[in-house]
């Protein structure tokens, strides 16, 4: 199976930072999203006038170095952080100021960087997953847990009774993805979800993401500082630098034919395994 976005149409690639927020098949549209921390002289524009569209059934990756604003952007999309200015549209509806997060979180779920600190160490996997009952109520059945675990390549019988320290790092992160999938979300945000894993395990987690896209049509926002991983999974790439979107477009174009100096520098700094021309 290939991870290539085979035959998928890639709308307007203007290569510029203004990424036409084409609302056609977009699940999420951000228009001039801005988030400012502090005020007056101390104000920091962590995300500065960023516009983008996440198309359905695609993996969009945000790349940028530490402090570029990528996690702030994710937190705004998750409604964990209010938007200072700009507009956020989800599934056709303006959700910029939406406050009923409980319903929103049925649609938008996330996995974060550290799969160990995200667990209560005294809970088994079953109990961890069962906490979703607070959002799902009676909808949460054993069958649904088994299905979610299967989607990430885990056998329920192997893991449901286990404690976090009895799982490997890769298994823990799979369980976190399964937890997110219990909601049957339409958007999954993976914020540095592979950064703390060994290189030998990263591909296995990324394969879970591409499989979810290819089989379940899930829309995924993947956040990473590693262009190698972005190259492996992405349909579309957004490059953030100091809060600004400096380049965006189809992954192949952005990574193999970067137009912005910052993207070029970022690529030049990536250590390679083999000499390339």
């Amino acid at each position, binding site marked *: 199976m290939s991870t290539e976005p085979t035959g998928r149409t890639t709308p307007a690639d203007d290569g510029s930072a203004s990424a036409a927020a084409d609302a056609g098949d977009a699940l999420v549209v951000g228009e001039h999203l801005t988030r400012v921390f502090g005020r007056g002289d101390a104000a920091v524009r962590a995300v500065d006038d960023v516009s983008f569209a996440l198309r359905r059934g695609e993996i969009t990756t945000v790349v940028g170095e530490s402090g570029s604003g990528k996690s702030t952007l994710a937190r705004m999309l998750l409604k964990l952080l209010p938007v200072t200015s700009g507009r956020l549209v989800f599934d056709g509806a303006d959700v910029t100021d939406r406050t009923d997060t409980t319903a929103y979180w049925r649609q938008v779920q996330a996995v974060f960087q550290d799969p160990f600190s995200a667990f209560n160490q005294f809970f088994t996997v079953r109990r961890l997953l069962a906490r979703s009952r607070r959002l799902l109520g009676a909808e949460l059945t054993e069958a649904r847990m088994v299905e979610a675990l299967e989607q990430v390549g885990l056998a329920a019988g192997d893991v449901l009774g286990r404690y976090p320290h009895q799982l490997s790092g890769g298994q823990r992160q799979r369980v976190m993805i399964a937890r997110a999938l219990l909601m049957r979300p339409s958007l999954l945000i993976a914020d540095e979800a592979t950064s703390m894993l060994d290189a030998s395990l990263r591909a296995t987690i990324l394969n879970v993401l591409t499989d979810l896209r290819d089989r379940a049509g899930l829309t995924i926002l993947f956040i990473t500082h590693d262009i*190698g991983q972005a190259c492996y999974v992405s349909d579309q790439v957004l490059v953030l630098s100091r809060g600004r979107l400096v380049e965006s477009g189809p992954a192949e174009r952005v990574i193999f034919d970067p137009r912005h100096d910052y993207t070029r520098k970022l690529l030049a*700094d990536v250590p390679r395994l083999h000499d390339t021309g």
Partner: protein
Amino acid sequence: MSDTAPAAPLVRARGLRAAYRSQRGSDVVAVDDVSLELSGGQVLGIAGESGSGKSTLAAVLSLTARPPLSVLGGELTIDGEQLDLSGGRRPPRTWRGSVVSLLPQGAMNSLSATTRVGDLAVDVVRAHRGRVRRADALDLLTDRLDALDLPRRVVDSYPHQLSGGMRQRVVTVLSTLLDPKLLIADEPTSALDVSTQRALTELLRELLHRGLVGGIVFVTHDLPVLRAVADRIAIMYAGQLVEVGDTAGLIDDPRHPYTAALLASVLVPEPQIRTRRVGGIAGAPPDLAAPPTGCRFHPRCSLATDVCAEQSPPLLGTIGAGYSTCWWRAEHPDEPLEARL
């Protein structure tokens, strides 16, 4: 086993063994009979997955093993001076910092938040050289910063006033202030983004080039970083070295199936990775309390045969020049591994 290296290497380690004592009284041997050599002016990379024992090896080499980790045995020779590590003997205090120095994991968070960098440098110098005038110690630091093109302002800075990458470089400068013969860098770049990563590896190379450190052992799970910084690479699996070789040779023509599998799971921004599915390595590293018999990699190895499960693999090559430990390789000395995986 004979050494073929012409001149005596800067670092020569033989039969290093170290174990964690568990509460049940059994030992988990995390470094099991590791021998290696490092020539002056070179970087030896040590790579492996989590749990392979590479950080434990770093602790043994940097003489920083603390309970529950204890060194069971082995011999370490650095620049002609020999140290017997067996019998729980404590290494001489004078070795730390000036003969060997450790650049620890998460170094950027190891600075004291309430101490200016300059004051810390004074402490470091005084701890090793006794009564040194404050001004002299600060001169040593500023000279070093000048030599490495780092800004002098860090002397009067508190850690929070510096970026993560700058903090990492400052810790590197502090840990090499006494010109150690051997620097052990344990995952120094893992928490950094690529641009700061590159600045750090360039700094380490510069330290070597100027003779401020004699040699570097660089521990990481990131093979592309080693490609950029290391002269030689040792691959560690389940407490043992399975392959050692020069960087280009090991990456272009791996001799051990584990090395080949690690290389195959690397994700770099090159066109070919968009067209193939990277499988990673099936299974997980073994529990070191009960490592597999024979070759420790055999349960995860697609080329394993009966002999791999029964007998320890032969050492093909020499410790000085490079080697691999693999039954399959013994039968197929010239076959490239890439085609077999």
